[in-house]
């Protein structure tokens, strides 16, 4: 797909979001509420113990993590129901008669969505949080660059996850309950609620076997400074490997799903 076309679709998707102003306002409040709840929870928890460091996190570190992981999560907001809604109403037919890649069309739509949420929600929430909470982010240009790289890799991974999950609609048509399950799985195993470091030992092999931690946890801890710069490259390599694996899964599913597709409504 030509970059010009990709960005055109990004811009259309972005503009579509802008029209829902009320939605955006509620989104900011909602996002901030989450940040407030999580930081309060951590503060309350930490005040119960005499030790100040838990699983390698000081109170400042854990509050920083809670704010930033929420910020990244909001930036990663995408409509994971796009594909299955198109299958359910049959409008996917009109997309398949265009000489464009279905995956990249979908990605462009997601990017437009995320771009809007980053500008309208992530930035305000981070800025407010910087004033309200005790947050420490190490300002190293290399780290910032590494974070951006890891952030985009995580974004591509989550797009692929949503794409693959959405393709299940080719087989089952109604997959909304599954998408809820996927969301719960993602939120927990990506470190969206509690950092992976706090997970019990028996869950760690499971976490390491799944791609979720590379979507939120690692980009976030690269930014907070928890990961030494020397280890950053191995994280990014793992992310790229997962992108490769997910890419293979997506294209296998796409190949098999095409044969199963039924256009609803004639």
């Amino acid at each position: 797909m030509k970059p010009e076309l990709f960005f055109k679709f990004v811009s259309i998707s972005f503009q579509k979001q802008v029209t829902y102003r009320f939605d955006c306002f509620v989104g900011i409040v909602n996002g901030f509420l989450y940040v407030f709840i999580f930081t309060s929870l951590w503060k309350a928890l930490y005040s119960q113990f005499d030790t100040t460091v838990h699983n390698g996190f000081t109170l400042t570190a854990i509050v920083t993590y809670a704010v930033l992981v929420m910020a990244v999560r909001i930036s990663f907001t995408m409509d994971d129901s796009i594909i299955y809604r198109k299958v359910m109403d049959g409008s996917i037919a009109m997309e398949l008669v265009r000489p464009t890649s279905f995956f990249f069309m979908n990605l462009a739509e997601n990017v437009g969505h995320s771009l809007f949420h980053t500008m309208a929600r992530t930035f305000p929430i981070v800025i407010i949080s910087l004033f309200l909470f005790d947050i420490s982010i190490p300002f190293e240009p290399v780290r910032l660059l590494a974070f951006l790289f890891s952030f985009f890799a995580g974004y591509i991974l989550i797009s692929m996850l949503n794409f693959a999950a959405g393709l299940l609609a080719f087989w089952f048509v109604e997959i909304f309950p599954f998408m809820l399950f996927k969301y719960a799985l993602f939120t927990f195993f990506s470190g969206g609620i509690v950092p992976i470091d706090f997970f019990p030992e028996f869950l760690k092999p499971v976490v390491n076997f799944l791609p979720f931690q590379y979507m939120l946890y690692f980009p976030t801890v690269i930014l907070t400074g928890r990961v030494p710069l020397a280890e950053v490259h191995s994280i990014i390599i793992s992310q790229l490997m997962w992108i490769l694996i997910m890419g293979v899964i997506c294209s296998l599913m796409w190949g098999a799903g095409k044969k199963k597709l039924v256009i609803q409504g004639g």
Partner: protein
Amino acid sequence: MQHDNIAIEVTDLRKEFKVSLSGKGFLGKLQALFHRSNKVITAVNDIDFKIRRGEFVGYVGENGAGKSTTIKMLTGILVPTSGTAAVNGIVPYKDRKKNAAKIGVVFGQRTQLWWDLPVRESFDLLRVIFRVSRSDFDRQMEKLEKALGLRPLLEMPVRKLSLGQRMRCDIAAALIHNPPVLFLDEPTIGLDVLAKQSVRNFLSEINRTVGTTIILTTHDMNDIEQLCKRLIILEEGKIMFDGETELLKQKFIHEKVIEVEFYENDCVMQEISGVTVVREQGCKKWLTFDKDNFGIGDVIGTIASQYKIKDISVKEPSVESIIRNIYDNRIKLSTPSNKSFTK
């Protein structure tokens, strides 16, 4: 070998759908949750046809006959269960994107325009999608704007268009890249008489002047009669008839209908050999006769010499009535001429 003058080639094309059957009512549905029986429906049943470049083909059949399923396989949306298809020498379900670049598609009940964008922006987006150069685009748009009367619509958002307006825009959208093959799936659905006529005129013109190959599915037999030189009739996934529309008419034109109205005192008509009364309504009778064995003059002469006629007219069967008869299985396509015309 692919011949250059073949636009579409379909061999043993088949598409099956699995339909799960669930029982009736609450208990039946509950049971279906655990055990479900599947039924395979053959939407398209091993069909073959070839369409040459520049042909205008009507692809008709009752609801569920498999028309749309065929079109969807030829446009790369659906993958056939078995058999092969090639459009412009490209296999659509293998090279979807390559195929899509060389075809235009209109699905009457869907739109490929962007709901929230003005028509002009939708067109411009399609220009980028189909990689049409600015100068080619401007030339094509000028033609389309004029022929389809789009100028007043260009600044309107698509969601505000009426069905007829939207359809005209959708037809234009399908032609922005000037494709050699155009698929139209019920493009005149819901249009008023005037809009229908302008769409027909336009289609006939691009077929004639540009040489665009057009495959049209429709339920409107006027579309067929006015546009399609060739007709493919589908029933339950199989091709029932494939040939010239004119040929179909000639084949069944044996059944010319004479509509006679007699004066009151001559209302009762004796049987005439070779002539069948198909309908009666008071003193009005509809008669059919075998065109091969009787001249129309003979039949009218015979009647006129015996009875006093108030009014008489001769009607040829329309394509619509022929197709309706085919659907109703009243005409067996394999043996159309050996019919008895006496009761």
